[in-house]
C-alpha cells in the first residue's frame, strides 16, 4: 500500500465534499435544524402528549381559554385541548387518531367519545375519570420524585439525531457515491492506474470518517451554544465511541459500495437498510417493551449499539469500560463489514 496514492484519493474526496455546497450545507444544516426544531416544538416535554377535542367551539384550534369541561381535567399537564366546531368534525378527528378523546362542553354528566383502538385514548379516558375523583383519593398513594438532574427529551434525542445523521451520511456518502462512480466510469479510470482497491477503499473510508467527525463537532458546538447539552460522562469517551460508531457505519457503506452499477437499486437497498435502522435503533423513541424479535433485529444494526453507548456516557455518566460491550460489538461488526466489502469489491461490475 502506498500512502501517497491513498492521500491523493483522500484529498480529492474531501475537496469534492467541501465544494459541493448543497451536500455540504445539507450535512450540517439538516441535523442542526432537526435538533433546534425538536427543542422548540417539544422543549422539556416528550412525544407523549394527549389531545382532547372539545365541541362545540366556534374557533377551531388550540384552546387557551376556559371551556365547560371538568376544571380539574382542563388543568392536567400534557393534555392539549383542541376546539372542534361540531360532533361530526370531532368524530372524524377521533377516527383518524388526530385527537384521542372528544368531549362535549356543558354541565355534568359530561359526555365524551373515545376510539377504542387508540392507546392514548384509553389513557386519556383514565385521566378524565381520575380528574373527577374526590381530592382525598390521593391519600391511598405515596408520591416520590426522581432525584438528580432532569434529562430533557431533547437531551435524550440529541445523540439519536447525531447518530442518524452519521448513518445516512456514511451509507449514502460511501455506498451511493461509489456506485455512482462505478456507473459513470470514474472507477474504471482509476483501475487503469496503479491505485489498488485497498488503497481506494481505505481512502474513501478515512475521508468519510474525517468528514463525519468534523460534521459531528460542528453540529454539536452549534447545537450546544443554543441548547446547552450536559454530558454526564467524559467528552473523550464520547469521541472514542462516536469514532468507533462512524467507522462501523462507514464500513457498512462499503459493503453496499462493493458491487452494482444501478443508482436506483442502490438507493432502494439503502432505504431498505436505513429506515428500519432509524426506527429500531431508538433514534426517535425507545423500543422498551417492544416484542423480543424487534429487539433482536435492532441488535443487528450498528446504530443501536452506538446510541446505547453514547446515551450511557452522555446521560448516565458511564465510562469507556462501562460501554466496552458496545465497543466490542461495533468493532466486530466493522471487521465483518470490511471483510465482506473488500472481498466483493469490483471496479467495474
Amino acid at each position, binding site marked *: 500500500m502506498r500512502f*501517497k*496514492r491513498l*492521500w*491523493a*484519493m483522500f*484529498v*480529492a474526496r474531501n*475537496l*469534492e465534499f467541501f*465544494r*459541493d455546497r448543497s451536500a455540504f450545507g445539507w450535512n450540517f444544516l439538516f441535523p442542526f435544524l432537526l435538533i433546534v426544531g425538536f427543542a422548540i416544538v417539544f422543549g422539556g416535554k416528550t412525544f407523549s402528549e394527549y389531545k382532547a377535542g372539545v365541541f362545540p367551539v366556534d374557533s377551531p384550534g388550540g384552546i387557551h381559554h376556559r371551556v365547560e369541561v371538568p376544571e380539574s381535567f382542563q388543568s392536567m399537564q400534557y393534555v392539549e385541548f383542541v376546539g372542534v366546531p361540531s360532533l361530526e368534525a370531532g368524530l372524524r378527528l377521533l377516527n383518524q387518531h388526530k385527537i384521542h378523546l372528544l368531549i362535549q362542553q356543558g354541565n355534568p354528566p359530561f359526555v365524551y367519545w373515545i376510539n377504542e383502538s387508540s392507546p392514548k385514548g384509553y389513557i386519556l379516558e383514565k385521566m378524565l375519570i381520575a380528574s373527577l375523583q374526590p381530592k382525598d383519593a390521593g391519600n391511598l398513594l405515596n408520591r416520590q420524585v426522581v432525584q438528580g438532574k432532569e434529562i430533557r427529551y431533547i437531551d435524550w434525542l440529541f445523540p439519536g439525531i447525531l447518530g442518524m445523521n452519521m448513518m445516512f451520511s456514511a451509507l449514502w456518502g460511501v455506498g451511493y457515491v461509489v456506485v455512482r*462512480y462505478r456507473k*459513470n*466510469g*470514474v472507477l*474504471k*479510470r*482509476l*483501475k*487503469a*492506474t*496503479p*491505485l489498488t482497491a485497498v488503497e481506494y477503499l481505505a481512502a474513501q473510508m478515512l475521508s468519510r470518517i474525517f468528514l463525519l467527525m468534523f460534521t459531528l463537532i460542528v453540529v454539536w458546538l452549534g447545537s450546544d451554544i443554543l441548547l446547552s447539552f450536559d454530558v454526564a460522562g467524559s467528552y473523550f469517551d464520547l469521541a472514542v465511541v462516536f469514532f468507533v460508531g462512524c467507522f462501523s457505519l462507514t464500513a457498512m457503506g462499503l459493503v453496499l459500495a462493493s458491487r452494482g452499477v444501478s443508482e436506483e437499486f442502490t438507493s432502494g437497498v439503502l432505504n431498505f437498510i436505513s429506515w428500519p435502522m432509524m426506527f429500531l435503533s431508538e433514534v426517535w423513541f425507545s423500543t422498551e417493551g417492544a416484542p423480543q424479535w424487534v429487539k433482536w433485529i435492532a441488535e443487528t444494526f450498528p446504530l443501536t449499539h452506538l446510541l446505547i453507548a453514547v446515551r450511557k456516557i452522555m446521560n448516565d455518566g458511564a465510562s469507556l469500560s462501562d460501554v466496552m460491550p458496545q465497543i466490542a460489538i461495533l468493532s466486530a461488526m466493522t471487521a465483518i463489514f470490511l471483510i465482506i466489502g473488500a472481498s466483493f469489491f469490483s471496479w*467495474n461490475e
Partner: protein
Amino acid sequence: MKPDTAQKTVPPLLEVRRLVKTYKSLTAVDDVSFAIPRGICFGLLGPNGAGKTTTVEMMEGIISADSGEVYYKGALRAADFNEEIGIQFQHTELLSYLTVRETLQTFHKLYSRTEDIDVLLKTCNLLEIQKQYNDKISGGQRQRLLLALALVNRPELLFLDEPSTGLDPQARRNLWDIVLNIKSQGKTIILTTHYMREAQTLCDEVAIMDHGCIIARGTVPDLIGEYCSEDSNGGPCAEANLETVFIKLTGRQLRE
C-alpha cells in the same frame, strides 16, 4: 551482433495471442491475435459491436479474457503494467468539484514516474483552463484533459479509445495535432476510432475488426492498394481511401 539481427530479437511492445471473450451467447472477441511494434500508431477499426473496445480493454487489463494471453515487452503483463501505460477511455466521468490542475495533480500522485504538470498543461492546450472545474469545461477541453491524464505517467504505451467522438472539426484537428506530437516523441499508440480520416491521418498500421475477428490488417497505403484497386464493376475506385476499404470489408448494412 549485426543491427538487423538485433532488431529481429526485439519483441513487439504489445502482443495478443488468441484472445477470446464471450458474453452469454455472444462471442465479442473470437480468437484475435496480433502484435504491435514499438513507436507506431496502431489503429483498431470496426463497426459498432465489432469487438474493438472489448479487445482493447482486455489488452489494458480492465476486463479479463476468457482465453488467450497478452504480452508486454515479450512477457506476460506484470503487476507494474499500469505504471507504464496511459489510457483515454471512450466514456469516463471526471471527479466532480476538482479543477483541471487538481485533477492532474491527483492522478500525478498515483504514479511513481511522472510528467511535469505544467508540461502536460502546455502539451494538451490546457493552460488557460487549468483553474476551471471539470464540469465547466467544453467537450474538446474535456477530451484534452482526459488525454493529459493518460500522459501523466509518461507512458510507453498509450491507448486512445475513440478520443475525438463528439468533437467539432476544430477540436478534432487540435486533438490530432496533439496526438501527432506525442507520436513524434516515439510513444506507441493504440487508437480505436470511427473516423476513417482520423485513422488515415494518425495511424501507421490498422486492423479492421468485424464480428469479433480481425478481417484485414496492414498499413493504410497497403490496404488502399489492396482493396481500392477496382470497384465492384471492375473499374478504378472513385474514392481510394480508408473509408472505401472499410465499407468494402464490413458492408453498408446498419449495425445498430
